[in-house]
């Protein structure tokens, strides 16, 4: 999503996902809309997963970032349309990979990877495709756990959600 006012976009871009600090909330696609009512900015955000415990923190961080810039923001939580991994920007995907989290594949390939088909996900440590799934559920709701058979490092994979 693009925000018309570059100053506002910069403020929002400075807020990151507390679970994945290298990823701006703009690049993960959870900021859906910014409206202005009088002097107050209404920032609409949508959760990645219903139970995502980071949402409250993200809301507080957005308000704090606006406050630091001398402005006031309020948070509106919206559920529809539901968040999709398609909304992660290419900049976001690069940031994820760099941080050690493999970016989501397309839906069909993702399903194969998550039913245990080997060699589907590229190791974020050494780049080998010789990897296998360890667990469909990982350290947070949005990730699965994989391991590289070459360098033996475990790494997270961001699950496709559509």
């Amino acid at each position: 999503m693009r925000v018309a006012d570059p100053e506002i976009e910069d403020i929002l871009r400075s807020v990151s996902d507390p679970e994945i600090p290298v990823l701006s909330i703009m690049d993960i696609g959870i900021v859906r809309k910014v409206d202005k009512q009088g002097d107050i900015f209404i920032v609409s955000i949508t959760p990645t997963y219903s139970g995502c415990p980071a949402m409250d923190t993200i809301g507080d961080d957005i308000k704090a970032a606006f406050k630091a810039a001398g402005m006031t923001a309020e948070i509106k939580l919206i559920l529809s349309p539901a968040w999709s991994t398609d909304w992660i920007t290419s900049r976001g995907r690069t940031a994820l990979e760099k941080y050690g989290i493999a970016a989501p594949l397309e839906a069909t390939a993702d399903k194969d990877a998550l039913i245990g088909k080997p060699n589907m996900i590229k190791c974020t440590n050494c780049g080998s495709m010789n990897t296998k799934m360890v667990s469909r559920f990982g350290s947070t709701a949005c990730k699965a756990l994989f391991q590289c058979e070459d360098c033996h490092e475990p790494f997270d994979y961001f699950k496709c959600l559509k």
Partner: protein
Amino acid sequence: MEQKALYDYLLLLGDNPTILGQRLGELCGHGPELETDIALTNISLDLFGQVRNYFQYAAEVIGNGATEDSVAMLRHEHEYKNALLVEQPNRDFAYVICRQFLFDIFHQLLLNELMSSKNERISAIAHKSVKEVDYHVDFSSTWMKRLGDGTEESNQRLTEAMGFLWRYSMELFKPTETETLMAEMGVGPDLSELKPIYMERVNTTLQASKLVMPEKTTYQYGGKTGRHTEYMGYILAEFQYMQRAYPNMKW
């Protein structure tokens, strides 16, 4: 009157994932292996996330200073409307998986219908939740097959769990007055129409799991109208402890 019915309906939708989520939470640190432990608690987290959406809405509907926390945690036992199935204890891993499977298949069917609810907010919650529940169905169905088609011991334990839990399955499809009203208003589905699809899906997975459909049994009902098994009080004692001991506490 209509607001009261909507409130009751939101409780019917939210109490199943609440109590099942709490049961799964009990397994935190006690799963049979690390990955399964993480999976079960992840599912619990998904369920509680969905519950928050229902209960935030319920609190707005009922007003009077209600909050999602007060709706979730400050009701008495007979005011909870979850089905008896989800309050059954974690006897062993076979019971955990079987209970999950019997609920997940229903949950997926229900959410698929709720996506076209005339109530926009319920429809939005269903759209969000169904993506998560698809994963749950996959998880529990895979384990049904793995245990059923595993060793003699795992098959026998799963057969026992199924034989015990099946009696609670049909309550999910027996509409309460509120559910009938909501179906008439186009807010919720006609539960009896979902039953044949449920039977077929359960049967398909049971066959793949080398299990047989349980014989006809005396089905148990009551949870949805507030008549719970003896387990419910113990669940609530733990679930409500912090809110009762420290009223209005927040994390």
